């Protein structure tokens, strides 16, 4: 598809603003010194759902191009998290899609984060946390995440990926009041310009 084949354009119009039930709660941006853990605490209980959007870059050294970020609720480090993953597998021949279950673990796998070998690319994700303030239901999340480095492989390792995840936090009694996102192991710390934004979505 060549852009030169599209000479006819029309300018979008109709500038409007509408009242929204989607509200920004807090944002964290990593400064030049890096940061291993980002926590949103004292989350208000006035919404129905939460959403986190983020761009993340890690600092994993060596030839492996990516590491991983984790997600925990309420500082719970017990084995109470389970992930269900559907992900691309670019290195298979032909490239395919795989699905599997993780857990029970003491964290959610949240998002791939490029390391030193894949700089300056960032991993990105959006996560929805449903009925986060319930005190009688286990909490479930949905994540769309990945990283693209304009390469299939770097140093022989998979260098680009995309996945959908659903997750279960087996805690029905407690509302989610804090969210901690951490760069796992050698991926730590998150590098400068990494950013996480937390939003609240109101129900009717």
């Amino acid at each position, binding site marked *: 598809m060549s852009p030169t*084949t599209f000479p006819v354009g029309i300018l979008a119009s109709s500038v409007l603003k509408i009242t929204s039930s989607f509200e920004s709660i807090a944002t964290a941006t990593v400064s030049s010194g890096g940061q291993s853990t980002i926590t949103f605490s004292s989350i208000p209980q006035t919404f129905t759902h939460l959403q986190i959007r983020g761009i993340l870059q890690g600092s994993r050294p060596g030839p492996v191009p990516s590491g991983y970020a984790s997600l925990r609720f309420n500082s719970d480090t017990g084995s109470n998290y389970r992930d269900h993953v559907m992900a691309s597998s670019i290195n298979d021949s032909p490239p395919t899609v795989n699905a599997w279950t993780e857990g029970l673990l003491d964290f959610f796998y949240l998002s791939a984060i490029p390391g030193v070998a894949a700089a300056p690319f960032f991993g990105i994700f959006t996560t929805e946390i449903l009925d986060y303030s319930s005190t009688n239901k286990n909490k479930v999340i949905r994540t769309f995440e990945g990283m693209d480095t304009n390469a299939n492989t770097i140093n022989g390792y998979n260098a680009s990926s995309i996945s959908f995840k659903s997750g279960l936090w087996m805690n029905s009694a407690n509302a989610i009041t804090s969210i901690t996102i951490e760069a796992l192991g050698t991926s730590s710390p998150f590098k400068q310009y990494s950013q996480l934004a937390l939003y609240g979505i109101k129900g009717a």
Partner: protein
Amino acid sequence: MAAGPTYELIATTTAGGSSTNITFNSISGSYTDLVLIIASVTAQIDNVGITLNSDTGSNYSRTIMQGNGSTKSSSKNNNQTYLYTMYKDTAGGDPVMSISQFLNYSNSTTYKSVLTRQVTNSSGTKSAQSILSVWRSNSAITSISINSGNANFNSGATFTLYGIAAA
């Protein structure tokens, strides 16, 4: 403490049936993310691509995961000349739609990444795709140009751009 409502409509346009291109220009940098929804495309179109800031260089890449009800696959395309947002509809007639999220589009320090989900439900091609795209530029995104490869967008196809501000 919540900073107040966000997710605002920036602009919307409806195709008139005589254009292969829709462009959102002069996009404000006052948001953190953009969301672009393309809906009700029923024309027999080729792949729909997006160029940012009129950049037609080989500065785009994408990772794709897809399924069509019977098979699943993934693919990778590097050094492309456009972002990919909608799979071709080889038959036309049934609606195709996509939603794309441009994360941190207004900074001048990082490459720009886009998460897209799209569905095609034509008689020729039924599929659901998720796409992660990258534009290798640190420039803030100020224009989004949506291009249909081989045919005009049908009359009634809608293109809506939202902005989401972070606290």
